[in-house]
Structure formats: C-alpha cells, structure tokens
C-alpha cells in the first residue's frame, strides 16, 4: 500500500425497505415483513430479520418466500418513501465528510480520513453516525471501519444487524486471513471451486499460495488481483456521489404481453412515471431508451436522441412508441422499461426552441407544463394512481418498481 493510511467507513441500513415499513406501521414491528413485487412472478426486495429466520432472502421469488413464511406480511415496495428516507440518512453521512459514495439507497462508503481531527477516530465517527441515524430517522445502520473498502464492507457484514466492527490499523490482512475466499470480490462459485482444488479455502491460504500455482488455477491476471486483495491491498478510492445518470421505470408483467396495442399501454404508463420522476428531480434528458425483455429472456434496447431535453410524459411516450416500431412486438413480452438519460444542464432547460414554438405555439407547451405540474401535485398527495389517463383507467394491480 502506498500513501497515508485511510479511514473508510462502510454503512449499510439493516433490512432497509422492510425496516421502513415497520417504522411507518408500528403494528408490523416484530413481525416478518417481506417487501417485494406483488405479482406471482415478482421477487423479494427486502426481508426483515424476523422473516429471514424463515429462510427468506432478497432476490428470492416472492412465491417461494410465501411458502417459507406463510404468515409473513407481504408488501409492495414504496420507492418514493425509501428514497426520501435514504436522502435523510445520506445527509447525516455528509455532516461528517463530503466523500460519500452511495452504492444504493441503503449502502455507502465514506472516506473520513480528513475528518478524524475534528470528529475523532473511525470508530467514534461510525458510532456517532449510528446514533444520529437511529435518533433522527429511527433506522438501524451497520458499520464497518477499515483502511480499505474491501475490509470495511466485510466488517459491516460480520457485524450485522446493528453492528459496528472496526479493523485495527495495519490489521487488514490478519482480519481477512481466517475468512473463506468466497468473501472476496471476484470470487464466485467457479473460482472458489478452482481454488479449493489447490487447497485454498481461506483468504489467508490465498495470500500464501505462490503466484504460479494460482495462475494455473484462475489465470495470470486474476491471480495477481486476488493475491493483492487477499493481502488487504485495495487501492480504490471513495468516489463521491455522482448525480443520477438516468431515470427509468420498468415492469415485469403478471402475464406476458404481446401486440403493439398492449405494449403501448404499458409504455404510456411507464413514460408517465418517468416523466413524474424527472420533474420531481428537476431533470430533463435528451436520450430516451426503450427496453423490451421477451418471455425467453432475450433483451433488446432501442434508444433515440431528442433535439430538446424533455421531462414531458407525452414526449417520452412518443419517443418510445417510435422505438417500438423497431422491435418485434408480436412475440410474448415479459418486461418493458422506459428510461431517460443525457440530462441537460439546468440552464439549457430554460432555453425555448424556435421550431417547436412555431409548430406548437407556446400556450400549448405552457398548458402541458402546467398540466404536468398539477398532476404531479395530485400524485404526490394521493399516490401515483390518483389521476390516471383515460386510456389506462381500467388497469389495476400493476407492479411498481424502482
């Protein structure tokens, strides 16, 4: 390792989505709560610790979770609520350092090297953050403290739930040594099996195995990378928050859809959700992408670049509808998705278009804008489906997503 020793925190909210549900509905506390897609083909997004006792895990099909835990409380996800709480939690993190790298809504790396002088050592900072998150948001967060990202993340996992594990300075290799190799990033079942043949089961074994022997098992370049990790060498920096690069909505249908008309209905609804999210985030993008996954899981995406950045449901829908012409709409489709990326700078969005103004006179554009704003207010107060387009009105029981 080069340079001064760093202090990196890994923070992970425990069973985040399920904990939020228990937070908002006290009657659910102490009960197995499973958040997942409601359709019979959905998967589990999060399971409370009570549910985990029954063997329920994230990413497991909901149907299987129901078998394992028939008395569980199954809830559809409410991503708007989760992201609002996540923002509150991340705001607490940022009181301690600007170097916050979110990995997801519930997980982040913090580099607090420079904050130690002000806030004490890594363990003190982690403890202070845990207290603040508990007091201000009512949520439990597990923390790992180490000199490198890899060790910090593993430390968090070892301490869960509500844990705080610190790897002492200079102790990364010793901390990792007794752990199974499968804990390392990049070691999946195949690599693990190949290593086991060499007699390598722990990370410590890996560190002691000669390069040449490793190379024959996993290839030269992986061998070098794995050994470095095993010795606790993980030079990756904490890269602070990058702004979102795209905003999207997608949906796995309860039953496969086919035919242009059916797909367009789904896309219209998804375009509406994307538009709403864009406007809520104050974003507008140039690139509109259509994603279609067929029943046989083959995936196609088609994208188009609009001359003007948009956050308008209708414009997004027209763009994906045009892209739909380029895919086979007659095959059974399992999932469609709509996303907008290529965000315009804040200022660019205010610039009006000469030709658009000539084609659709400004009052029209303004009407759409105020209509969108009014609908957004209703959706925020009464939920996404408070007001629905007439052509979508008979739909219900749709699966939401993130």
């Amino acid at each position, binding site marked *: 390792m080069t340079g001064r020793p760093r202090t990196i925190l890994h923070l992970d909210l425990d069973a985040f989505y399920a904990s939020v549900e228990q937070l908002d509905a006290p009657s659910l506390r102490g009960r197995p709560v499973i958040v997942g897609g409601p359709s019979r083909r959905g998967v589990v997004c999060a399971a409370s610790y009570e549910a985990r006792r029954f063997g329920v895990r994230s990413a497991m099909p909901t149907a299987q979770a129901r078998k394992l835990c028939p008395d569980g409380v199954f809830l559809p996800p409410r991503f708007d609520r989760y992201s609002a709480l996540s923002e509150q939690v991340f705001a607490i993190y940022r009181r301690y350092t600007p170097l916050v790298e979110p990995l997801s809504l519930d997980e982040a790396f913090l580099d607090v090297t420079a904050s130690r002088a002000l806030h004490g050592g890594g363990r003190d900072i982690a403890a202070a953050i845990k207290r603040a998150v508990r007091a201000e948001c009512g949520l439990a967060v597990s923390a790992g403290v180490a000199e490198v990202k890899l060790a910090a993340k593993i430390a968090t996992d070892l301490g869960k739930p509500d844990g705080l594990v610190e790897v002492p300075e200079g102790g990364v290799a010793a901390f990792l040594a007794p752990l199974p190799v499968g804990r390392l990033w990049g070691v999946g079942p195949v690599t693990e099996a190949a290593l086991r043949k060499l007699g390598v089961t722990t990370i410590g074994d890996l560190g002691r195995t000669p390069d040449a022997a490793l190379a024959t098992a996993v290839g030269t370049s992986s061998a070098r990378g794995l050994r470095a990790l095993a010795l606790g060498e993980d030079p990756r920096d904490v890269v602070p928050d990058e702004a979102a690069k795209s905003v999207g909505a997608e949906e796995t249908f309860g039953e496969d859809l086919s035919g242009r008309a059916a797909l367009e209905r789904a896309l219209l609804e998804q375009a509406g959700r994307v538009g709403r999210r864009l406007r809520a985030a104050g974003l507008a993008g140039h690139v509109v992408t259509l994603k279609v996954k067929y029943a046989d899981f083959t995936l196609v995406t088609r994208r188009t670049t609009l*001359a003007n950045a948009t956050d308008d449901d209708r414009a997004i829908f027209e763009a994906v509808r045009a892209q739909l012409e380029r895919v086979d709409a007659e095959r059974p489709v399992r999932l469609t998705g709509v996303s907008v990326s290529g965000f315009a*700078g804040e200022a*660019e969005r205010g610039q*009006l278009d*000469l030709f658009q103004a000539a084609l659709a006179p400004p009052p029209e554009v*303004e009407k759409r804008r105020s209509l969108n704003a009014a609908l957004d207010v209703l959706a925020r107060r009464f939920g996404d489906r408070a007001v629905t387009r007439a052509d979508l009105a008979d739909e219900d029981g749709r699966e939401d997503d993130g």
Partner: protein
Amino acid sequence: MELKIGVAELSKALGRSQGIVEKKSTMPILSHVLLEAKKGQLVVSATDLDLAVSSEHGESCEVLKEGALAVSARHLYEIVRALPEQQVTLKRANNNYLEVRSGPSEFRIVGLPAEDFPALPRFEKVTFTDVKPDELLEMIERTFFAVSNDETRYNLNGVYFEPSPEVLRLVATDGHRLSLSERPSSSTFGLKRGVILPKKGLQELRKLLAEAVEGGTEAGETKLGFVENSAIFRRPGVILSMRLIEGLFPDYRQVIPKQGEKVVRVGRDRLLETLRRISLLSTDKAHAVKLELGKGTLRVLSQNPDLGEAKEEVPVEYEGEPLKIGFNARYLMDVLAVVKSADVQLELADDLSPGVLHGGDEKDQGFTAVVMPMRI
C-alpha cells in the same frame, strides 16, 4: 521529386491544408498532405474525403525533378514555419522519405507513397458564378455563428445557401436562434433549390475569402460553382471543394415573426458591453440574463445562486408596455458582434416569443436575427 521554393510560399500552401487534414482519423493518410511537383509548380493538396483543397504555387518555385509524395501535414507545417532561411529544398528520397533542406538545417521525414493518397475529386463542366469576396464573406460571418454543433441535427450543421433570380440568401439556425443574411443578386448559381454548405467547409472558405479580401482581387477572379452534391470555390492558384450536407433545411420562414409590437432601439456597443459584463455572473453554460424593459430604459440582470447577482441599466428608445424576458446573453452578443450600425433594433412580443434583431441603418440591410428567449 525535387524542388526549390520560398519558405513563405510553402508555408502559405501548407497553412491552407491545416484545417482540412484529419488529426484523429483511422486512416493515417488523411493526416497527410500530397505534394506534387509538376509543370514548374508545386501543388499541395489535402482532403478529409468531404472537403478537399488544392493549392498551386509557381511563384518562387523551381521544379528540379517532377514527382509526388505524401507527408504529415502538421509536422511539415511546423518544420517549415521554423526554418532559418528564406529558401527551402524539398526532395523525395528512398522509401518515401522527404528531405527538407534550408541553409544549415536538414530534416528527413517519413512519408507515404503518393499513390496511397485518396483521389481528389475532379469536376468537369462546372458552371462557375463570380462572387465578390468581401460580400460573400460578410454574409457567411453573419450566419456562421448560428450553425448548430449538435451532430444529431445534421441538417443544421451548415449554412443554407439559397439563391434566386432576385436575391441570394444565407440562413443558419441551431434551433434556438436563427440568422439570415440576404443581398440582391441575379444569379441562381445553376441551382434549382437551396443547398446546405457544411460548417467545416465554410470555415475554410472564410479563410480563403479573407485571403482574397486582404490580397485584393481582380473582378471575376473569385468564383463559386455547384455540381452534383458538391460546392466548388476557385481563386487563382487555389481550389476548394466541399460535399454538401444532404438533408432538408427547416422552413425558416415560418419562425421569423412579423414586426413585433414592442420595438426597442438601443446603442449596439453599449448593449454588447453591458451583456458582456452582466453575463459574467450568469450560470455557466447558458449565460442567462434577464431583460426588464420599461419606458426609456432596459435593465439587464443576472443571477447565480453560487456567485451572486448583477444588474445594469441601459438607456433605450422605447415607449411601449413593460416586459420581462430572459435570453442567453451569448446569443444576443453573437448577433451584436456582426452588426455594423451604431444602433440595433430589437422587436419583442412577449416573454415566450422570439425576439428579432436588425441593424439600425442601411449598413445592415438584409440582416435579420431571431433569438428564442429563455424561461425565467
């Protein structure tokens, strides 16, 4: 190939090719210039396959042995500009090396065989029309700035060149603003409809026109012609050809508003300076400024949440209703920069409709700029 030539002359020849050669092409030969010694002169050519220039130099040139060779345009140009003497000898050596000798200096540059150089377009039977370099240059200057850089709008990546038996019109737009310059002209250039001249080609054309204006040209020496899908520009000793942009130029007429109800007259220099100052505090890319128009005054304001705010009042001739409207200051400054009159006339309707700018007197006759506002 072997020849002697004046360093200044060679430098001029190579200078004409610098804007055309591709710096990052996957085809190395496109970063090269073709040197041909023939019939007592040196011909230097460059192409990026859309644009091509050939520059002929008989003056101060003595061909000792005819022949041809391609060499890196940038390296040869840099060497030639740094040579110690007034004269230079170019000689093709074995293995396509080019020997450059001037006084005590000697260079050997790796070249490529002339046969590898792409065939330059040959245009037979082009009907050329005389153009006045100063007038055409002015028309290009007045429209070029509004050309779009957005490659997805390829039909806006150039200037629309629309001749008619009465008037020649050049128009450019990037979708946010539009600029139009027209002059009485009786030639149709053999065209049935307007064509789109590409931005890169216009950039080179501007240089050659400026050379002509500076050097002084005899009437009838500067010509422009069209054939198939190319435009060809010719002056004594140089020929530039460019492939036209294929595509439909949008109907610009529909976006030029009729006379707006609110007409403001303001000093060009004063407004330009004010915009330059006030936009210093605008948010980065869009240079947004707010104009508050009242009787006799125009207040220009900017605001940046990170930096602060600025405002300035400019005296104007205006008697109408008050209006607040936002603009990208750069779009306004681009227009003011090409206006020659002391005053400009700004015509507005409301805060969501395009503003129209004209020069205040006959120096800017035929010039119209349209700028779409920003929402504020």
